C-alpha cells in the first residue's frame, strides 16, 4: 500500500500499489506515433480520404452484384460498359456471371489495389518521415533506451505507425469491400468461393505495407530533419512512380517493353501483385477470349526481377535502420 501521508503533504510517495508487469513496449510506441502523426491536418485529411477507397470498393462490388442479377438483360448494357471501362474486362454477352465471379473480383481488386498503392505512397510521405527523424531532432532516444525497450521493439513500434496509415488505404478498404461484396452477392456461398482471394488481399496488402514501412524507417533514421527524409521518399518512391505512369500513358502499348512495368517501386509492387493474384491462370479457366481481359492481364512482366529488387531493398532497409537504432541505443546517455 502507498504510505499514508497528509493530503497537503508534498513529500515523495513511493508507488507500490501494483507491481509493474512487463508488457510489450511497441504497442505504446505505435499508439503514441499514430496520435502524434494524426495531429497534423494534412495527415488527418489523407487518412479520412483513404476511407474513400472503402466507399469506392463497396460501390464497385455493388455494381458487380447488380451485374450478376441483371446479366443478359437490356438493363445490364450500361453496367457492362462500366466494368469494361474500369476493370478492362469485356463481359458483353456473358449471362451467367456468377461463374466468373472469382476472376472478375480478382480483376476488381487488382484495379483497386493499384489505385490505392498510389495513395499509400502519398500517405507514407506525410505520416512517416518524422518517425525516427523527430526523435533524433528532439534527442528523445534516451527516454526509450533508458527503459526496458529494445531496438527491435522500438523499430517494430515505429513501423506499425506507417503500417496503420498505409493499411487504411490498401488493406482495410479492400477487406471492407470484400465483406460488402460477399454480403450483397449471397453470403456463405460466396465466402467459400472468395476465401483464397481474402487471404491474397491480406498477404499482398500486408507485404506492401511492411515494405513501405521499413523503407521509410531506413530513410527516417538517416537524418534528424524530416524534410530531407520527405525529399528522399519522393525521389525513391514517388518520382519514379510518376515517370512510369507518364511513360505508360504516352507510349503505345506495343512499344512498351515488359521492363517498363517495373521501373519504380510502385511498378515492382504492382507487378508482383499481378503475378500473385494470378489473373492469367484465372482467365485461362474461362471460355472468354484473351482480348476480353486485355487491361486486367497486365503486361506480363517477369516477377523475378521486381521480386529480387524489392527483397533486396527490404533486407537492406531492415539491416540499415536496425544498425542505426542499435548505434543510437548504445550512445543514448551521450545523446
Amino acid at each position, binding site marked *: 500500500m502507498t504510505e499514508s501521508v497528509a493530503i497537503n503533504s*508534498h*513529500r*515523495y*510517495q*513511493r*508507488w*507500490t*500499489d*501494483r507491481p*509493474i*508487469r*512487463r*508488457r510489450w*513496449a511497441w504497442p*505504446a*510506441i505505435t499508439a*503514441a506515433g499514430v496520435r*502524434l502523426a494524426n*495531429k497534423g491536418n494534412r495527415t488527418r485529411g489523407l487518412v479520412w480520404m483513404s476511407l474513400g477507397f472503402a466507399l469506392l470498393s463497396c460501390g464497385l462490388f455493388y455494381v458487380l452484384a447488380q451485374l450478376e442479377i441483371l446479366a443478359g438483360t437490356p438493363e445490364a448494357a450500361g453496367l457492362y460498359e462500366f466494368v469494361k471501362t474500369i476493370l478492362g474486362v469485356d463481359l458483353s454477352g456473358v449471362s451467367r456471371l456468377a461463374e466468373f465471379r472469382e476472376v472478375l473480383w480478382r480483376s476488381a481488386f487488382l484495379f483497386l489495389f493499384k489505385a490505392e498503392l498510389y495513395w499509400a505512397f502519398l500517405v507514407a510521405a506525410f505520416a512517416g518521415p518524422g518517425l525516427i527523424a*523527430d*526523435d533524433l531532432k*528532439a*534527442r*528523445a*532516444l*534516451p*527516454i*526509450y*533506451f*533508458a*527503459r*526496458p*525497450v529494445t531496438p527491435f521493439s522500438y523499430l517494430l513500434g515505429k513501423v506499425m505507425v506507417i503500417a496503420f496509415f498505409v493499411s487504411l488505404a490498401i488493406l482495410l478498404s479492400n477487406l471492407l469491400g470484400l465483406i460488402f461484396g460477399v454480403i450483397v452477392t449471397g453470403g456463405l456461398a460466396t465466402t467459400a468461393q472468395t476465401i483464397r482471394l481474402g487471404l491474397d488481399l491480406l498477404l499482398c496488402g500486408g507485404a506492401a505495407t511492411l515494405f513501405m514501412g521499413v523503407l521509410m524507417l531506413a530513410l527516417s533514421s538517416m537524418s534528424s530533419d524530416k524534410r530531407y527524409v520527405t525529399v528522399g521518399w519522393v525521389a525513391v518512391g514517388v518520382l519514379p512512380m510518376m515517370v512510369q505512369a507518364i511513360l505508360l500513358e504516352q507510349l503505345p502499348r506495343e512499344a512498351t517493353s515488359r521492363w517498363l512495368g517495373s521501373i519504380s517501386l510502385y511498378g515492382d509492387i504492382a507487378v508482383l501483385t499481378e503475378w500473385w493474384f494470378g489473373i492469367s491462370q484465372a482467365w485461362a479457366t474461362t471460355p472468354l477470349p484473351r482480348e476480353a481481359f486485355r487491361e486486367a492481364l497486365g503486361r506480363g512482366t517477369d516477377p523475378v526481377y521486381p521480386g529480387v529488387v524489392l527483397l533486396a531493398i527490404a533486407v537492406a532497409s531492415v539491416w540499415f535502420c536496425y544498425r542505426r537504432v542499435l548505434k543510437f*541505443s*548504445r*550512445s*543514448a*546517455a*551521450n*545523446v
Partner: protein
Amino acid sequence: MPAMFTCEKLSKRYGVITALNSLSLSVEAGIVGLLGPNGAGKSTLISILLGQTPATSGRASVCGLDVARRQRMIRQRVGFVPENDCLIPGMTGTGYVCYVGKLAGMSHSDAMQRTHEVLDYVELDEARYRPAEQYSTGMKQRLKLAQALVHDPDVLFLDEPTNGMDPQGRRSMLSLIADLGRAGISVLLSSHLLPDVERVCQRVIIMGGGEVLSSGDIEGMRRPRPTRYTVDFEGDGAEFCRRLSEQQVKIRTRGNGTTAVELPDIGEEGAILRAARETNTRLRGLHPERSSLEEAFMAAIERQQNR
C-alpha cells in the same frame, strides 16, 4: 540494502581512446555526486550502468543486478534524467510522462494515475496539459524528473538536472532531490555545478581520464585550513577586529557578530584569544574553516595532471 552500484575493473575503449580505465568502485545507497571535467567518463559510466553500452572488460552491477545480463530489470528499477531536453514535440506534459510510464511496462491506467502523482510532486500543476515544447527551461527540467520517477525507481541517475535553471528553480529542484533521498531513492547526481552537489550530496566521486581520482564523504574531502577561522562574538566587534589586525591577523570578511580571519602562521590561535581578552569581547565560537568542494575537485584534477 544492496549498493547503488558497483564496478570491478570496468574498462571501456573506443578505438584508441580509453573512456574508462579499470574502474573499481562500490557506491552505497544515498545521494552521491559524480564530478569530473568533460571527457572524464561520467556519461560512459552511466551508459554502461544503464546497460546501453557494453563494457570492454570488467563487471558492473546496479542494485545487485549484473548489467551485462539483467539490463531489462535494471532499467525497470532505474530512472534516468538526461542532460538534453529529450521531450517529444506535440506531447503534453501528462501525455509524455504517461507514455514513458508505459514504456517502462506500466498499464495505461497505472501510468496515468502515477503521472498525476509525480506531476503534482514536481509542481507542474495546470501546465501539465500544455505541449511540453512550450515549457520554460525550469519546467522542462522538472518534467524530465517526473518522467524518471513515474515508475518509482529505486535508483535515479541525474545528468545536470539544474542546467539552465534560475536560482529559485535550482533551489526547488535541489530540495526535490534531497526529498527523494529521504524517501529511500538512491541518487547519482552528475553535475558541473559544485555548489549544487555540495548542497544535496553526502558523498562524491571525482572522475578524470576514465579513472576515479577521489571519492568519499564531502566533509572528509574538505580539508581543514589550519590558518583560517570563523569567529563568532558578542557586540559590534570593532575594537576586537582592530586589535586582531594589530596582531598581524588578517580580517577576511566581517559581518554582524561574526568575522572570518586568517592567522599569520599555523598555531597562532592564541592571538584571537588575546585580542578578545584585551577588548573584553565575549567569544561565542571559533570554527576552523575547511576547503570548499571546488578546491578539493581542482586539487584532484591537478594531482591527475601532474602524474
